[in-house]
């Protein structure tokens, strides 16, 4: 395993180490395919002035080491709220986790002491945000911020921490890292800043990285570089990656499997290739059809009618029913469960689920 860069102080000392030990999670165990995270029937609500906003309504998904799960959804779909619940950075109140489990290597994060939780956050599960500039402290040099982690967690010396920072910057392919280690965040371009954020997330060698719209604020050419970097690093270190995005294009290039969210629920899951070829939920199908193509001019653009629902008043039955082409009476009353999708011969399609009463018609029709 590529473990030569492990900080020497990681094994001994440090007040929070007991909690880490408790998890039994060491880098050596990070074999591709090892189950890392399992979200089980998560429910999150927000108290607002106008009532209870049901942001997440029973979300379940899992990620293994070396795997990339893309969570795709529009604003208000609950994709980011789920991630915040995993990280334990949800604003509570007004937020409230009303049900569900978040198992990290078998341990429920929601039932952990806050001390143990802190040990997991950052060290075992790290997060990359959309806005790198506001996530970095403008008055501290990039090298200091990168090295801070080592000094805080492992009591590394100043000199050593700086070397670590340079090493991390080189790892995320920042050119001339040694010269730029003392520069401040505003001296870097948007893409470079996002690399620094990635370096920071990597610094504690986490098992799992959650990237919330990591490239949305970046230009196309830079976007491609950053996504490539994430994919490379993952291949090298075999961590699990949850990629939260609204961009069907970004997902296509890097994800192994996709979970599509709508109004706080997962409406479809699928291995990436099959989803694009044959979606099994009308929402996914509509989204795919509504994106213009780069490689041909195309005629009329298909548009999903209506608007995403208010989380204060999610339609009964299937939440997508006011916007769906296939809506029948049944859709107005009966909540469609997320069921396995079968092919035309009735054989199971591995990894594929749809929460539509008419998945068969959608998939095969």
């Amino acid at each position, binding site marked *: 395993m590529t473990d030569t860069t492990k900080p020497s102080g990681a094994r001994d000392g440090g007040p929070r180490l007991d909690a880490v030990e408790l998890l039994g999670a060491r880098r050596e165990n990070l074999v591709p395919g090892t189950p890392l995270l399992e979200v089980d029937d998560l429910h999150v609500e927000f108290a607002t002035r106008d009532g209870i906003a049901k942001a997440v309504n029973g979300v379940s998904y899992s990620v293994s080491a070396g795997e990339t799960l893309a969570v795709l959804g*529009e*604003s208000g779909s609950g994709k980011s709220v789920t991630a915040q619940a995993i990280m334990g950075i949800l604003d509570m109140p007004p937020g409230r986790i009303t049900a569900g489990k978040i198992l990290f290597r078998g341990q429920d994060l929601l039932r952990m002491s806050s001390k143990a939780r802190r040990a997991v956050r950052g060290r075992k599960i790290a997060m990359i945000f959309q806005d790198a500039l506001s996530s970095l402290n403008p008055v501290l040099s990039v090298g200091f911020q990168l090295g801070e982690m080592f000094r805080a967690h492992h009591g590394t010396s100043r000199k050593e921490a700086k070397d670590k920072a340079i090493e991390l910057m080189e790892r995320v392919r920042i050119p001339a890292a040694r010269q730029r280690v003392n520069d401040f965040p505003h001296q870097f*371009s*948007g*893409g*470079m800043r996002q690399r620094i954020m990635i370096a920071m997330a990597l610094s504690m060698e986490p098992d799992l990285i959650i990237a919330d719209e990591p490239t949305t604020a970046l*230009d*196309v*050419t*830079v*976007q*491609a*570089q950053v*996504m*490539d970097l994430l994919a490379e690093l993952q291949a090298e270190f075999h961590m699990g990656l949850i990629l939260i995005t*609204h*961009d*069907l*294009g*970004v*997902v*296509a*290039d890097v994800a192994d499997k996709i979970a599509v969210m709508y109004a706080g629920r997962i409406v479809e899951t699928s291995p*990436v*290739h099959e989803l*694009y*070829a044959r979606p099994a939920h009308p929402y996914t199908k*509509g*989204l*795919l059809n*509504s*994106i*213009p*193509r*780069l*490689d*041909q*001019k*195309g005629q*009329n*653009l*298909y*548009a*999903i*009618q209506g*608007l*995403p629902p208010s989380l204060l008043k999610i339609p009964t039955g299937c939440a997508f029913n006011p*916007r769906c082409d296939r809506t029948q009476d049944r859709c107005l009353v009966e909540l469609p469960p997320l069921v396995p999708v079968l092919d035309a011969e009735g054989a199971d399609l591995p990894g594929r689920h749809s929460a539509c009463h008419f998945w068969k018609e959608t998939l095969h029709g």
Partner: protein
Amino acid sequence: MAEPILEVRDLVKYYPLTQGILFKRQVGAVKAVDGISFELMKGETLGIVGESGCGKSTLAKVLMNLERATSGEVRFKGQDITRLSGAGLKSVRRNIQMVFQDPYTSLNPRMTVGDIIGEPFEIHPEVAPKGDRRKAVQDLLDVVGLNPEYINRYPHQFSGGQRQRIGIARGLALKPEVIICDEPVSALDVSVQAQVINLLEQLQGEFGLSYMFIAHDLSIVRHISDRVGVMYLGKMVEIGTEEQIYSYPTHPYTQALLSAVPVPDPTGRERRERILLSGDLPSPANPPSGCRFRTRCWKAQERCSVEVPLLAVPELLEGPAAHRSACHFAEVRDVIGTA
């Protein structure tokens, strides 16, 4: 094609950089737009693409006369509008309108939808007599697909897509001939983007509008545009029909840009080339000599640092692929694998 409605000639916009506390002296300039020429034909959609910092938003502001051009001309139906002021400018404003990127900041939160869409009539009373204004506003709401009864609501009661429709209705109120759309859908959810794009296309057909459509999303630009211009660091590097730019790109920057677009189709990925650009965008205050793209270009030679490439049809290009490109070594390279 029809006659040009907007002609832009050698348009330049510099923002001076000053230094000093008491006596300000100019120490340089940010060359946001640096000598751009193109024309917008009647009834067509011209897409402008480029990354942040390329000057496309400044271009929109100068065309709208929201910023004074440093030099150059913008001719609307033959009349240079860059030096206009007062009544002359006001009457040109009737004919050129704008749709903004951010539907949250482009509508005054203290005004009702009726006031927002009705404001153009108050500024230009000759367009709609006082008694007809309420009706005119309701008609506009209907045209953009909103319920005319929403007239007394406030912007925060609407979603992003609905707000953008309100912004479009305001832009349409004066019956302009040209609408400049500055990233009109990039702040919207994917499922709503298509609705707004369709609306813009439908309105174009209905009212014979000419659009200048500025965006960074190359797929959307291809969908809506008849012709496309590519900008880099204040310069137009390539311009041609949608087909010429996407299927026969000749400028290395256009090629890199196209190859970087993530396409929602994992199976088509193998056919595509990936060109990864190295380095960062140079500062527009101190652009590279010669060709501005040479610092990131894999084709760059001695000549590129000395000689500024002109936006012209390369000699080797013939037939339907022939279009203007500002590269000394322009050659067609099909990066999206379609042609």
